[in-house]
């Protein structure tokens, strides 16, 4: 019980201090809007293509919304030493890190709905399988957040975190089947795609939104879950090694 008081208040504090701050709320809107605008309007492929573009736009909105937040809530707080307070609190480190990431996960999911709402006006979403799309959005938010966490605990400066995340983020736009299928990639790049967690999340979204997933959904969910566990595990390990000196 005591632990959950701590968990909830860490989450609440981050929301108030970071996520619900006007600049973040507006960036949380502007980023997805910009992505959406760029792809929907300039695709020139007409309204039908809205459905085929939506998975990619959702994924990219989540990816950019979540990963950049961790460099603030974790790297920046560590640098300013207020993070030491959290390490001194009598709560297990895994729970602490879940609390620190929960805000980003929620923020990422909120970001995902910006393109969805826009798409409601542009296309017909009646065939979308929401019962599948929602868990997919959650999984993408979790895995992107944990990727951000992994980066955030591996560096000591905020700018390093940003640079390091871009190292993952930009290739993922092209390699994870966001806007063109992984099958369309040159053969030598394909193994790389399967090593990136977003590939599986986006595949579920393709399935949920217009029924065309490449892999079986079971494989997709399993793969993305494995990525979540592994990224979280290695983040904790890094944290132990670097921050509890």
């Amino acid at each position, binding site marked *: 019980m005591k632990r959950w*008081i701590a968990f909830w208040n860490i989450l609440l504090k981050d929301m108030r201090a970071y996520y619900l701050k006007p600049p973040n709320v507006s960036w949380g809107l502007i980023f997805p809007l910009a992505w959406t605008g760029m792809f929907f309007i300039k695709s020139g492929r007409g309204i039908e293509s809205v459905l085929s573009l939506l998975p990619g736009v959702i994924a990219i909105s989540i990816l950019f919304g979540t990963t950049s937040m961790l460099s603030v809530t974790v790297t920046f707080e560590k640098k300013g030493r207020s993070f030491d*307070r959290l*390490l001194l*609190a009598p709560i297990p480190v895994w729970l602490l890190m879940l609390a620190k990431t929960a805000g980003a996960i929620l923020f990422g999911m909120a970001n995902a709905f910006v393109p969805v709402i826009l798409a409601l006006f542009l296309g017909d979403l009646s065939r979308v399988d929401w019962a599948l799309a929602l868990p997919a959005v959650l999984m993408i938010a979790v895995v992107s957040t944990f990727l951000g966490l992994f980066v955030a605990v591996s560096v000591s400066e905020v700018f390093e975190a940003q640079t390091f995340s871009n190292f993952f983020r930009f290739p993922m736009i092209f390699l994870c089947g966001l806007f063109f299928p992984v099958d369309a990639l040159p053969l030598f790049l394909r193994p790389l795609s399967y090593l990136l967690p977003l590939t599986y999340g986006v595949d579920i979204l393709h399935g949920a939104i217009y029924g065309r997933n490449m892999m079986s959904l079971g494989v997709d969910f399993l793969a993305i879950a494995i990525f979540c566990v592994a990224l979280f595990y290695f983040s904790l390990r890094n944290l132990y090694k670097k921050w*509890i*000196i």
Partner: protein
Amino acid sequence: MSMTQGRSPFIETAELTKRFGAITAVDNMSFKVDQGEFFGFLGPNGAGKTTTINLLTGLARPDSGTIRIAGFECTNDTKAAQHLIGVVPDESNLYPELSGFDNLCFCAALYGMPKKVRRTRARELLEVFGLSEAADRKFAGYSKGMKRKLTIAAGIIHDPPVLFLDEPTTGIDVAGARSIRQLIKDLHRAGTTIFLTTHYIEEAERLCDRIAFIVRGRIVGADTVENLLRPAQGRHVMLATVSRSDQLLREKLAAAFPDCALQDLSGGRFRIESAEPIRIGMLVRFFEEHDVELLEARHIHPSLEDVFVRITGIEADLMKKEKEKTGGGT
């Protein structure tokens, strides 16, 4: 939670060692702190005080040695005793964007305190620390002294039986430092076990029941203030600074003052101790005869400062210089 009561030590370390590459920050330290005791770690910058606190509180793990706090084996489990520990770090590290009140409530929540209790306790502490007026202002806008006070309040919000304070008055103005010392004294009087680090000799003397002198990661002496001062009672001590000194000069000095104990300190300084009053005139004449300029000579009263100099071989002035360098000063 069961706590070890009574005589048994509250904090106990054995052969504690922590290295950073080639530097041994904490070198084979064994010490005990009793429940309710005010224990001081006195030493210059870089002596290993902060590292020791980090090891005890779970922000660092030892390379070897053991730590027990309140009967909990903390050596391999940094979390074991954290619910009993309050920490005031050397830097005021609360959240700049939160108000004083919200900062305290947040810290209380980290220890699982329910909302009502948090709010009552936060208000109470703001009152005690004279920060009620500033309760709703952001921490970022606080003065240094206010920041430090709020950081202490945050350290005791959960009523910990033991409080670690890392140089709580460094960098704080005289009035602020005085009121902080008073607050710490009150806490101790109310039963909190206190582990304080400082490089102010007077501060340690004034506050602590027992003091450990720390130099280069080692405890070079530890005792109650009373016991530390005892051998110095009734002795006469003089500190002399000369333009140059060498082995020969030292030998001649020892021969010329056979009743005095001589200690050679770095930088052409001598500590001269005697059961009889030392006459400056004789000292001046001696150095003149040997063509050495006596730059400074002064009596020091038997104080902890003198004991510190004798045990550590470190000039008390050196400690003062270091505190100025770090932006402190009184």
